[in-house]
């Protein structure tokens, strides 16, 4: 293997690890949130330091590759894309941690009707499916699969759009649940942001893989 390929391989492995780690964090944040599992919430918060440290490692690998090898063509697109994907993944990790924080603050299970009305489970599942798609497409080097997640992001956006009305109606009918409702509102918002970051990841991956710029194009 030529020296730059060794560096590219290191970045590739680390990003793959980051995707799996963040996917697991988000998946646990769903379980923790849906079941008010505080033990799991603590684990998520604890694991966040691993996400942060892996982000720094990937940054370091990318900087090293740029400094020492002046990558061009596919290598250049790879390094530039991975730097951005890394930062999107780290943000998704942050959201998983924030949701775990909410679980600890709420301190009890939310009303099932409230969660169902807002389509909370569906929102979590869609966000996790987006990360599963990323993991699969990345590991198999398949940009077509990556494109599948754009449709999921649209559903996430729709649920997010409807949430305020649904939650407002619920609060009017059940004023004592105002705190729960605010936390749920924020959680849905976080998941919508997860979708945006996942979409960025797909766009950046496609830039690397197909040399196409999809960003800001309708």
């Amino acid at each position, binding site marked *: 293997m*030529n020296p*730059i*390929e060794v560096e590219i391989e290191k970045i590739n492995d680390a990003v793959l690890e980051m995707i799996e780690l963040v996917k697991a964090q988000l998946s646990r944040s769903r379980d923790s949130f849906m079941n008010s599992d505080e033990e799991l919430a603590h684990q998520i918060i604890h694991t966040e330091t691993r996400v942060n440290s892996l982000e720094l490692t990937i940054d370091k690998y990318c900087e090293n590759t740029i400094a020492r090898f*002046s*990558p*061009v*063509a*596919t*290598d*250049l*697109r790879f390094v530039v894309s991975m730097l951005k994907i890394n930062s999107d993944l780290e943000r998704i990790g942050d959201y998983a941690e924030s949701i775990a924080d909410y679980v600890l603050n709420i301190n009890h299970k939310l009303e099932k009707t409230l969660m169902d009305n807002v389509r909370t489970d569906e929102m979590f599942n869609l966000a996790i499916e987006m990360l599963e798609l990323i993991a699969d497409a990345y590991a198999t080097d398949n940009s077509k699969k990556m494109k599948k997640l754009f449709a999921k992001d649209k559903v996430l956006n729709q649920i997010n759009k409807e949430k305020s009305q649904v939650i407002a109606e619920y609060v009017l009918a059940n004023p004592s649940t105002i705190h729960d409702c605010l936390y749920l509102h924020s959680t849905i918002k976080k998941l919508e942001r997860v979708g945006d970051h996942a979409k960025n990841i797909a766009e950046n991956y496609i830039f690397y893989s197909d*040399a196409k710029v999809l960003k800001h194009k309708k």
Partner: protein
Amino acid sequence: MVNRVMETNKFKIQAKDIHAYYGTHHVIKGIDMDIKPNSVTAFIGPSGCGKSTFLRLINRMNDYIEGFTKTGDILLDDKNIYASNVQVEQLRKEVGMVFQKPNPFPKSIFENVTYGLKIQGITNKSDLEETAERSLRQAALWEEVKDDLKKSALALSGGQQQRLCIARTLAVEPSVILMDEPASALDPISTAKIEELIFELKEKYTIIIVTHNMQQASRVSDRTAFFYMGELIEYGKTKQIFLNPKKEKTENYISGRFG
């Protein structure tokens, strides 16, 4: 009519189906290339790929190589430079060349810069002085040598000598400058000066540079041509070649994965 005029002004240099041979050795295999005025074009490719031979065709430097033959035409401002009525000396005044190793004459700095004018018969002292200053300024050397124009050119550093050779080329007011690895024998600071100079010179001149330094090609050129085994594999905007080359051979070469 207007359209035709615009069309004919579009390219400074046009190569049409160029084949070249050293004896029976086929070194350039059917190259077509259009080069716009006031641009920098980089020729890249492994040793022996034909890029220097192709460069030297543009000012007929291969003419006197024994056994050298070529077919196809090269047009400079729409005129065939291999036409029978073209005087090679006149062509080389129009198409200047800078070589890999600085090759100043063992004369003073002033005599080096004004050499081309003198052989054209220009002897007026103030004309010569004016040209010397203008050329040395254009070559970003004036400030370093202005108090010492009588000093031997050979006493200058390698980087200064190369800029002197560029000044000598500029003095005869060419419109095209060919550079064959002009910075390969220079340290990074002198290299940076030459590259900065290339960037400035393209305002007035059309520049073609042969380089083995990929980063140099990507830094200084507007368009890049990748040659391999006598063929032009890919020719396009430098940004496209270095970010998204269309041909696998180009990608492998520029990313150092050849062979």
